[in-house]
């Protein structure tokens, strides 16, 4: 496919330019990541509040000697730049230190909470895709029609809904009033699948609703483009069965770019978990992040944001690369 489109230029040379693109993108990543980690580190240190005091509590904090000792243990007495360099060095070895709250290895705590958030995000994306496909395809069938306009308005509406409001409403109706679902909590999938699924419904739907709007718009415009091409005319001429095949074909075409949109929305979803997880007591990294901010637990805070930023940047990189490889129209 690649050599066809390049008009006969040898594959090797073309591959080389893609590689160059990939490598240059990876190089661009490094300063971005460094800057981002500096932002995290500085914000954490500039924030008022002394984690040593929190650890000791009001009674222990009365003693300046004890305080000084704890601060030294936590490494808080060295200058900022030194602290950052030391921290970065450790991080690259996989050592994020210990939680300032309970002394447990930070990476271990965070890693333990990641599966819950991953599950939540995955289920949300699934629900969002399902609904968005239904809506988007329907709208794309007759562009400009009343159905289309309604669906577009609904999509815009969904993007405007505050996710935590939906969450509270769902909680209020389904859990408090009707008692159909348990209100909050988390149980790992392996331990009790049924309970886990019951608990994930409300948070996943809340998270999904905002994404449905974005995905719908995208599926709609993608489908319109594809359907407007020769496929649909021939399909109409040839009859129903062919139409279904072309639908599937059409959908496959936008599938890859759909994946890239999902990748771009991951950032919003992660931000959403910060709000949603604490409403439903879903023990993921969003809730852990919120607690670490309130408790001034720098280690956990930095670890989570670091991982999130790295993941997000990597996902964007992959998305860019895939996009370039697959879509022949994009220039390098």
């Amino acid at each position, binding site marked *: 496919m690649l050599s066809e489109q390049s008009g006969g230029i040898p594959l090797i040379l073309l591959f080389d330019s893609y590689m160059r693109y990939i490598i240059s993108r990876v190089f*661009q990543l490094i*300063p*971005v*990541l460094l*800057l*981002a980690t500096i*932002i*995290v580190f500085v*914000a*954490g240190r*500039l*924030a*008022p509040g002394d984690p040593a005091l929190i650890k000791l509590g009001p009674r222990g904090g009365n003693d300046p000697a004890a305080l000084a000792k704890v601060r030294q243990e936590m490494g808080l007495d060295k200058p900022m730049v030194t602290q950052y360099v030391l921290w970065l060095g450790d991080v690259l070895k996989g050592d994020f230190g210990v939680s300032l709250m309970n002394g447990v290895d930070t990476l271990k705590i965070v890693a333990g909470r990641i599966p819950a958030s991953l599950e939540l995000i995955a289920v949300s994306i699934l629900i969002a895709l399902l609904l968005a496909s239904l809506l988007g395809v329907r709208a794309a069938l007759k562009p400009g029609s009343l159905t289309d*306009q309604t669906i577009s*308005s609904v999509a*815009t*509406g969904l*993007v*405007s*809904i*505050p996710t*935590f*409001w*939906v969450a*509270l*409403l769902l*909680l*209020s109706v389904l859990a*408090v*009033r009707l008692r159909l679902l348990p209100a909050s909590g988390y149980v790992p999938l392996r331990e009790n699948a049924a309970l886990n699924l019951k608990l994930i419904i409300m948070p996943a739907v809340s998270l999904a609703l905002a994404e449905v709007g974005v995905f719908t718009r995208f599926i709609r415009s993608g489908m319109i483009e594809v359907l407007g091409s020769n496929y649909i005319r021939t399909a109409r001429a040839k009859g129903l069965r062919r139409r279904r095949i072309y639908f599937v074909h059409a959908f496959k075409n936008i599938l890859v770019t759909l994946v890239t949109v999902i990748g771009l929305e991951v*950032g*919003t979803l*992660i*931000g*959403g978990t*910060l*709000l949603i997880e604490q*409403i439903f007591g879903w023990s993921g990294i969003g809730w852990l*992040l*919120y607690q670490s*901010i309130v408790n001034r637990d720098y280690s956990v805070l930095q670890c989570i*944001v670091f991982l*999130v*930023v790295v993941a*997000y*940047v990597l996902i*964007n990189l992959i998305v860019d690369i895939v996009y370039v490889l697959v879509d022949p129209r994009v220039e390098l």
Partner: protein
Amino acid sequence: MNAFFKRYKIRGIYLFAFAVLLLIVLMTLVPGLFTGHDPYELMSDDLLPPSRQHLLGTDELGRDLFARIVYGTRNTMYVGLGSSLLAVLIGIPIGLAAGYIGGALDSVLMRILDAFMSFPAILLAVLIISVTGANANALIVTIAVVNFPRFARIVRGNTLYIKRIDYVEATRTFGAGRTYLMFRTILTNCLSPIVVQFTLLVAVAILIEASMSFLGLGIQPPVPAWGSMLHTAQLYLRKAWWYAFIPGFMIFVVVYSMNIFGDWLRDFTDPKKRSR
């Protein structure tokens, strides 16, 4: 009438958005028009349901909820508009400089913008607020910092586009300085996309403010704000479900209208579609 609607591309939904925005403007400027109650006064019993005296009932300390919603508009719009203006003020020079001057400056600025954009919005906002403390002005700065990168990128994109088209013309003008060219020529050409982006920015800003207040990191009680009302309403889902419903509904309606308004502006100012 039909011709008027057609010329300005007004459809049903746009009318609704305009009406809502007009209402919001009125609520912001003359709240007294809507309610006689004081949003800070502990006037009645707690958590009363809607009634003749209290249109939307009372909150957890006996304050009139409708009054708090109305006066809350002002605070929400203050943060929404303020932060977006600041984002625009920061974003335009950066976008222009990056797009027009290009080269090393562009690379450096882009890396910095990328660094900021590699954070999910709420995460960055929470991070900044933990340094500054939570109040309306800090929120304005925070949301501006969160929003300006995307805006700067769009300005940069527009600048690049126009630079390509007008490059030849620009070199012919009478020895005008780079900055003059940058701001005057390019900016005027970018104006409509910028205005459209501004309205969408306000919509996002309102959502972020609401989220932050909901986390308890935004506007603090007793100052009325829709997001923080939802934060408190969480505790009273059983006793007073309307307390959770109404402020969220207001946020939704305003953000939705802003988005629709932005869509309309885009349709209206888009040169490609104007002939239709």
